[in-house]
């Protein structure tokens, strides 16, 4: 049985969460669930930054996580507004219907 947690465990956890996020982006068509998967990927990267910051004893990693969270909040606000506009124009949340932007 494992007695100690190494940095490897945190890397495996973050990688698994990141790949679940990639999987969600690939298999779902709902634009909002796509956004949630992207949030999952951002969170896994945050977790890895905090783990390394804690191991190295350097606060810079945690400052970066703070900035990533702020950018994620801004991104979600604009992204959800775009999704609402898309729904208002096409009456569908399917990301495949966004190809109407091409014409």
């Amino acid at each position, binding site marked *: 049985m494992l007695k100690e947690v190494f940095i490897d465990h945190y890397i495996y956890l973050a990688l698994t969460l990141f790949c679940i996020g990639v999987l969600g982006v690939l298999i779902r068509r709902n634009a909002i669930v796509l956004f949630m998967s992207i949030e999952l990927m951002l969170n896994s990267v945050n977790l890895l930054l905090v783990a390394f910051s804690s191991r190295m004893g350097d606060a810079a990693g*945690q400052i970066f996580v703070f900035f990533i969270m702020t950018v994620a909040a801004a991104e979600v606000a604009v992204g959800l507004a775009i999704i609402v506009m898309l729904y208002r124009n096409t009456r569908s949340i399917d990301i495949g219907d966004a190809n109407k932007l091409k014409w």
Partner: protein
Amino acid sequence: MLATYAFFFLAFIAIFFALLVVFSKNPIHSCLYLVLTMFAIAGNYVLLNAQFLAVVQLIVYAGAIMVLFLFTIMLLNLSSENEPVKSNLIKFIATIGGGSLLLVFVLALKKTDLGPAPLMFPNPNQQGMIQNLGKVLFSEYVFPFEVISILILISLMGAVVLGRKDKKVNPINE
């Protein structure tokens, strides 16, 4: 010792609910499972002695962002009935793609030597405390901090402009 068990418990919770986010049919359920994943990650931040980020994670992610998601889902009246689905072939190929990405990451990590030192639970150094983080944020990173406030302002205006009802635009399908 207890913290080691807490780490594995939180890791299990995070991965389990992350899988449920991806695979549940109802978008509202996906959103609520994502809140639980955020809680597990906040618990990991507490384990790593990053208390400030744990609280920010709870307030910003589990609070503000997920409420925004839930609000949008309920505004658009989405449920599992009108949920668009991809074909099984595409799901199969996507699962293979995601799995191979994980495989590549894990194999690359196996080749890397990260040193033998385990993470200390609880961490003795105090760099995650709000006093220390505030000192670093407002001395070394004060310019990015100001820039990010402008970004927030721009995104606020962008959301308002995008969400406004525009009479001139004709809906495509009508």
